[in-house]
């Protein structure tokens, strides 16, 4: 299964970035093979608006089936939901730890955004 973990760096030992739309990096990891690749999110990190929407679009285009992050706002959540990507909020620690927690099967997918949008 391909999952995305928002990260503050490009390695598995970097910390999870609690922000989704404005995360520094997306780590795209394959939970079966253990392979991973870092995708820079600088364009959305610096966007004046719409960062969550565009980050969610990027996640969909990367073929992710789930996203592990700290928080997701309403617009990003709407896009992820439309793309049928499961959202797991509240991730913390390193990317490696987040993946391990996910693989343990104890996480429950979020049903709604867990933070408010910036415009409403």
């Amino acid at each position, binding site marked *: 299964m391909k999952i995305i973990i928002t990260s503050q760096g490009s390695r598995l030992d970097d910390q999870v970035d609690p922000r989704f739309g404005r995360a520094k990096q997306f780590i795209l990891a394959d939970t079966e093979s253990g392979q991973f690749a870092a995708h820079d999110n600088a364009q959305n990190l610096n966007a004046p*608006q*719409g960062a969550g929407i565009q980050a969610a*679009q990027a996640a*969909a285009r990367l073929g992710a089936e789930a996203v592990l992050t700290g928080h997701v706002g309403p617009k990003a959540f709407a896009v992820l939901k*439309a793309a049928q990507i499961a959202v797991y909020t509240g991730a913390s620690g390193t990317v490696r730890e987040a993946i391990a927690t996910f693989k343990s099967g104890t996480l429950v997918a979020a049903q709604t955004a867990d933070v408010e949008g910036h415009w409403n």
Partner: protein
Amino acid sequence: MKLAIASGKGGTGKTTVATSLAWVAAQTGRTVAYLDCDVDEPNGHIFLRPEIESERPIEKLVPEVDPARCTHCGRCAQACRYGAIASLPQQTLVFAELCHACGGCVLACPVGALREVPRPIGQLRIGRSGQIRFLEGVLQVGEAMSPPAIRAVKSAAEAADLTILDAPPGTSCPVVETVRGCDRVLLVTEPTPFGLYDLSLAVEMIRVLKIPFAVVINRADAGDGRVREYCDRNRIFILAEIPDDRAVAEAYSNGQIIPQAVPTVGKHIADILEQLAGEDGP
């Protein structure tokens, strides 16, 4: 003449100066239009107390996707500078509240799957305050994009001897939208460090737009001399210095037209109009 009243900092007296100019100019028999372009929080009506004659919705054009035609190529999302479109492998989502109504996505779509549909974002109110033609835009609560509403106010105004555009504070898109196409800009400031800093940002903005401008220092004797020094150093013309006066504050608190309530201020305002008329006739 189209004259915009702007300032970097909020609360410097834009609306006080704008409504005062409108009132004094109308007294002299000129046709005057007052446009409240501070559509997030228009408050010129508090002073001008217009009789509203007509009201109509302000709309902006936003894209709508025809799912039958969309090939999910993603060009619309790429074209959108505002991140308002998400192009997914199976679906295209539009976040209309983030749309600036530029129409770029419609042009970018290679298969004609997008069309523009109107979305109400506020109200345009047109009326009269004595001899002054009054227009204001009121952005709907929850709408984030004011430039389309400001455009609607500007395009609804008929020509007048003097058109006064009361700008929102700041130096970003809503202000640029307001001052664009104006003949002159007055930057109202106050002699404080905050006033000076925000004035310097506003000056940078107006210089990029290449519109002739001058400064009005409001509550001129309340702070220090740094605004004056800044203007001298940068060869910026100070058109008027309106003194700090308790009577003005009292009239303001009662929603009165300042030059009507405090004649000494009326003289400063008349002087501004004369200087503007002197340079090329309003």
